Structures are given as structure tokens and as C-alpha cells.
């Protein structure tokens, strides 16, 4: 059963093509780079194939009926109007299929819910229309906003072709940086209206609700840049608050974090309001501490 499932998954992955060259004609969910995203992808393919199998059977009977039982072909209508046996069969079989589906789904759901044992906690706060990231135990925080040149390109009749802007609308000034292979717990809230934080490659999406804190976790296996978007309508610029996460090897992450902490300390060193309100160019470039609190 498991083998069959794997073969099916691999087969479709080949068939539907996930090569970058075909990116514009993407057909299917991304497999992603976390244990959860892979399990979710497996569930998605499983239920998809169950549906395809049922569709082939049901649509097959419908098409056969339409092709065969035509008055123009001289078909004479039968008079039966029920069959208890058939009705029991097509009630019981779907129930069995559903039970078979529910078991692996419930198992994954339990795993998703288990945020214990995390090695890093990041608090994400949604604003109209940007994200704030806070490394809760490390004292680092900054805002993440749609990159400047993207913001210019997306203005009405900007004259800038979206195709000329790399990763159009999916680039930010300060991405979230997390270590590879570590369980990251994300605490999610919002400061004005409801947003939703979503990175498809992590398989996870959670609403950011003002006054409440939600959580999700992920452990990314592969270093790289992963892009997502706000997924809950949050007003005029809902389409323009991307989520960008950079996954780096632990050592690189540590170095990055130390640099952020140093920059933050440097910004706070004068400890006067004027200094905080007028950070140097360097500070703006590294971390937007001035806006953090």
C-alpha cells in the first residue's frame, strides 16, 4: 500500500513536472522542504487519486449511459426505480473510503499540533501591510516590507514590466532568517486586522489575529529562500505583503544573529530617544530597530 502510494506520488511528480522551467504552468502543490509539508503533500496526492478513481468509475457510468441509452438508438426505458442492495453498497463503500482517509489525516493533524521541543521561537506580528519578526529569546526584531522596487512596479500604470522584476511581489527588504534543521516555533498575532502567515514550502498557514496568539512549527531541511504571502484579506494592500524566509545552515544563522544583536546594541547604546529615532544609514540597512517597539 505504502509502496503503491509512493510510486503514485513519484509518478505524478514526474508527470506534472515541478522543474523550474515549467514554473509558469505549475499544476500541483509543492512538496516543500519540511517533514510536515511532505506529509501534507502525500495526503493531498492520496485524496486526489482517490477522487480520480471515483471520478473514473462514476463519470464512466455516466458517459456509458449517455452514449448507450439514447432514444435515438432505440433504447427502451426500463421501469425500475430503486434497488436497496445498490443503495446500501454505494453508502457503505464511501464510508469505508472516508475512514481510510481519516486515519492518516488525523495522524498528521496531531503532528502539526505538537509544537513541543522547539529550538527557536519567532514571534510574527501582522500589520497593514507588513510583517514584524521578533526573535523572542534573542532580543532581535525587525519589520519586513515589500521591496522598494517591487512597490514601485506594482503602482497603477507604473510603466515597469512585472517580468523585469525578479520574484515580482515576492521580495522583502528584511527576510526572516532561520536555521536549517531546527524546529522553529512561530507565534503569530496581528496588530490591526486579521492576516495569515503562509509559506507553501513549509506546508503551514495560520491566521494572525489581533489580541490572540496562534502557533505553528516547521523544521526546514534545505537551505534556501522560501516565499509566501499574506493569505487573509487585510485591506487595500493585502496582495502586497509577502513572506520571505531564508533558511541558513546553523553556523551562518548564528553569525547573522550575532550581527543583528550587535547592530541592535549599537543602536541602543546612546540610549537617547534622538538616537533611536535617527538611526544611521547602516542601521537601516541591517535591521529596522527604530520601528521595532
Amino acid at each position, binding site marked *: 500500500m505504502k509502496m503503491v502510494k509512493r510510486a503514485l506520488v513519484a509518478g505524478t511528480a514526474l508527470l506534472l513536472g515541478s522543474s523550474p522551467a515549467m514554473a509558469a504552468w505549475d499544476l500541483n502543490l509543492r512538496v516543500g522542504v519540511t517533514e510536515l509539508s511532505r506529509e501534507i503533500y502525500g495526503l493531498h496526492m492520496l485524496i486526489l487519486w482517490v477522487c480520480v478513481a471515483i471520478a473514473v468509475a462514476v463519470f464512466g457510468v455516466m458517459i456509458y449511459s449517455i452514449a448507450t441509452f439514447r432514444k435515438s438508438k432505440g433504447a427502451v426505458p426500463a421501469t425500475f426505480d430503486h434497488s436497496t442492495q445498490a443503495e446500501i453498497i454505494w453508502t457503505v463503500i464511501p464510508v469505508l473510503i472516508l475512514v481510510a482517509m481519516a486515519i492518516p489525516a488525523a495522524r498528521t493533524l496531531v503532528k502539526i499540533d505538537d509544537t513541543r521541543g522547539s529550538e527557536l521561537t519567532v514571534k510574527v506580528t501582522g500589520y497593514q501591510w507588513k510583517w514584524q519578526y521578533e526573535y523572542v529569546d534573542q532580543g532581535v526584531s525587525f519589520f519586513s516590507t515589500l521591496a522598494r522596487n517591487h512597490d514601485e512596479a506594482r503602482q497603477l500604470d*507604473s510603466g515597469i514590466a512585472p517580468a523585469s522584476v525578479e520574484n515580482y511581489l515576492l521580495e522583502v527588504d528584511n527576510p526572516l532568517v532561520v536555521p536549517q534543521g531546527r524546529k522553529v516555533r512561530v507565534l503569530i498575532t496581528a496588530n490591526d486586522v486579521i492576516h495569515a502567515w503562509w509559506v507553501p514550502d513549509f506546508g503551514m498557514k*495560520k491566521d494572525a489575529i489581533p489580541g490572540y496568539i496562534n502557533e505553528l512549527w516547521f523544521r526546514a531541511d534545505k537551505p534556501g529562500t522560501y516565499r509566501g504571502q499574506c493569505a487573509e484579506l487585510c485591506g487595500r494592500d493585502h496582495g502586497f505583503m509577502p513572506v520571505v524566509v531564508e533558511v541558513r545552515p546553523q553556523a551562518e544563522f548564528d553569525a547573522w544573529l550575532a550581527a543583528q544583536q550587535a547592530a541592535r546594541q549599537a543602536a541602543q547604546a546612546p540610549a537617547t530617544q534622538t538616537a533611536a529615532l535617527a538611526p544611521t544609514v547602516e542601521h537601516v540597512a541591517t535591521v529596522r530597530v527604530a520601528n521595532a517597539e
Partner: protein
Amino acid sequence: MSATHTHGHAAGHEHHDDHGPASGIGRWLTTTNHKDIGTMYLVFSLVMFLLGGSMALVIRAELFMPGMQLIDPGFFNTMTTVHALVMVFGAVMPATVGLANWMIPMQIGAPDMALPRMNNFSFWLLVAAFSLLILSLFMPGGGPAAGWTLYPPLVLQTGDAFPLAIFAIHLAGASSIMGSINIIVTIMNLRAPGMTLLKMPLFVWTWLITAYLLIAVMPVFAGAVTMLLTDHFFHTTFFSASGGGDPVLYQHIFWFFGHPEVYIMILPAFGIVSEIIPTFSRKPLFGYESMVFATASIAFLSFIVWAHHMFTVGMPLAGEMFFMLSTMLIAVPTGVKVFNWTATMWKGSLTFEPPMLFALAFLFLFTIGGFSGLMMAIAPVDFQYHDTYFIVAHFHYVLVPGAVFAIMAGVYYWLPKWTGHMYDMKLANWHFWLSAIFVNVLFFPQHFLGLAGMPRRIPDYSTQFADWNMISSIGGFGFGLSQLLFVYLVWQCARGGAKATSEVWDAHPKGLEWTLPSPAPYHTFDEAPVVK
């Protein structure tokens, strides 16, 4: 047939002399006749369908390619919001109410609806409601733009349009409640002698259940939007954590209404299809009683699945588990219906008149929408699907080639009975094929967009989504323009055409409505027919 037939003509000789329609505009303002009111509902719904459709075309035009070319993102949000409100409350629901007004009295052998004055009032309230909603588009601060679900806190940022939109919903809700009361009272009290509940046509059954759903959930929705109103104007904090409230509470209340609302739109469609498929298969409906039972089961389940619209709000594990399992259960009675329709065609003698074509398209395409619905019932996977174009594809499949195609099938089925004329079959076939092809070009690629990661309700998108969006937009314009054929066909059929017989169709359709002459006289069944 002959007894009722002659009686219909003889009605004029009886005691009441107000039997004919009044002339001029007064007929339509003051009418209490179920046929007139049914016509008004249907015409209203068609106007709203075209209005909501034009809004959809504004959306599809902006999404034709990446970059912002036509409209402001704020106006884009207004378009998605008002398109949905107009289509749900202005097009689909009134269309099924219009069909109910026309057909329920004729199908159960009643002279009219039980509460004719309230019938008139509920229609005109709807006109008032939508005048307000459309007026709200021109208010300072723009029209409502928080999505048709009106989630707080975002909806509280709406400008002067806010109270107008809320009041419009109140009026539309009151109109629906009155309409439902009328339908329930009519079905319960005015059935012809011998027509027991289990002899009622499926369309009557599905509407009876729908009407109960409406009465159960419309007041809930009215309560939710009233709480929005007091949060906005009277400093209550039902939905604000800063005062001890909870924005998610609104979502629970909304979807407790919203999920049954989905079935309010689709159950009458099930009823229509259950009339048409047996007729053109020349075979009785397979499993009548299990159809009734499945409809009732779906209605019951609709009350305990609401939070599957909100898997990502951060419910406890037990909650997600419950709503996942209860949602999956819906596949069982829905499956029974699809299997029964298929079994009705099995060993039948099929012909493919326009109503049958639309019913068959419904059968295939609604089932596709059902499959994607089953997929998103799986909560862990829904974390990926939620709020993407996959969802947009799903609900448009169940609502457009689902509910709307069934309504069109119903109109094509009964239109000759209403007008007394046959319509242009060749043109209707064109309308069908254009609609059926373009609706798939429009909505099928949206599955791919959603899976590839495109969120819904965004006015601009990354270039990786460009190709399927362009195809979807082409489908959108093709589908929209094809509907003008439908408008022309209906208008032409109302004005004249080949005379329809009382049975209309060669397939000898069953049911009391076909015992009446075509067009059905202004007053029918003044004396109840006897059903054996």
C-alpha cells in the same frame, strides 16, 4: 388532466372578478399572484446576475496579466466583495425563490402561495435591499471591501458604506425569512388531496428543507451583522480583544449561518435536476426516498461542519478533528444523490434537450466541485488550500456549473409552460455549449493557481501565475458574453414563438404542472386536483 384543465378556464366564471392581471405598472407593484411574483424574482435575479457578472469581469480584466493596469487595489476589493454579495443574495437565492413561487403551487396543486401579500412584500424588500447595497458603492470611502464574509476587524474600517451594506443584509434576510415562511406554510397546508409528503416532487421537497434552513440561520446572520453595527457605532467590543471580545467569534457565528447558506443555494438545484433527469431519461427517479433522506441528512450535517471554513484560525486539535470528520461525512449523502441520478439514466431512453444538457453538465461539474470539497475537508491539507485560488475554483464549480446551471436547466425546462411558447432550441444549444466550455476554461485553471500558491482576493500576482490567469480571464469573458444569448432567448420566448403543448416535452414529463395548459392561466388549481 381534463378536469383541472377545464377548471382553469372556468375560473373566470366564479365569484371573484379580480382574476386577471391588472394593467400597467400597478400590476407589478401590487400583485399578489404567485406567477407574477415568481416572474419578478426571476427577472430581478437575471439583472443581478448580469450586474454581479460585470463585476467579475472587472476582476478578471485586472487579473488578465500581472501588474496593476486598470483599477485601484481598494476598488478591486470592493469588486470581489460586492460581486459575491450580489451573486449569493441577489442572483442565486432569488432565482430559486422565483422558481419556487412559480412551481411549488403548480406542483402541489395549490391555487397560489399561502401568504400572497407577504409574498409581494418579501419581493419588494429585496429590491430595497439591493438598492441600498448598490448605493453603498458610491459612498465616501468606497463600497464594502472586506469580503462578502465581512470579517471584523477589517470590515469595521469600511467608510460610510458600512451601515448601508449592513442594512441591506438585514432587509435581504428579512425578505428571505418571509419567503421561507411562505413556502413552508404553502407546502404544509395547500397540497392537493392525496398528495402525501412522500408523493411531493423532489423540487418541493428540497425547497421545504431549504426553507427550514433559511429560517434557522438567517436570524443568526442578522445577529452577527447587528453586533458588527454596535461594535462600529456604539463602542461594544463583541469582536475586539481589547474589550474582552474575540474576532474569531464572528467567524464562528458567520459560518454557522454561512455553511447552511451554501446548501440553501444548492438544495433547490438538486431538486430541479431531480425533476429533469427522470423526464429526459423517460424513467422514474431512482431512489426517491433515499433522495429525500439524503437531502435531509445534508441539511442536518450543514449545521455541524461550519468551522471547516476556518481551519487556520487556531482551533484546538479536538475542534479541528471534529470538523474534519463531520465534513467528510457530507460526502456520503451527496454521493448517494450523484449515484441516484446516474442510476436514473441507467437503462433509460435519453434525449438531450437544453434542460437535459444543463442538468448533465451540472451532474459532471458539480461532482468535480464535490471532489475538491472532499479534498479540502482533510484539515492538514486544507492548511495549504485555505484562502487560495483552489478554494475559489471549488466554490465556483459548485455555484456556477452547479447552482446556476441547474437554475438555467429549470428555466429551460419550465419556460414554455410559463410563456406558452417554445424557445429557439438551436440557439439554446449554442448557449449551452458555449457556457459549458467557457465555464471550464474560466474555473479549471484556478485549481492549478491555488495549488501553485496564489492567494485569493489579490489584485496583482507574481509572474509565475501569469499564464493560467490569462486563460482564466479569457474563459471569464467568453462565459460572460455567452450569457447574453440566454437573455435574448428568454426575451424572445416571452414575446412569441411556436406554441407549446400542455406537456411541452415529448418525453411526457410527470407532475401536476404538466396537466395545466401552456401558458399556465393566471389562476390555476382554484379547485384542488386529486392525486392518486
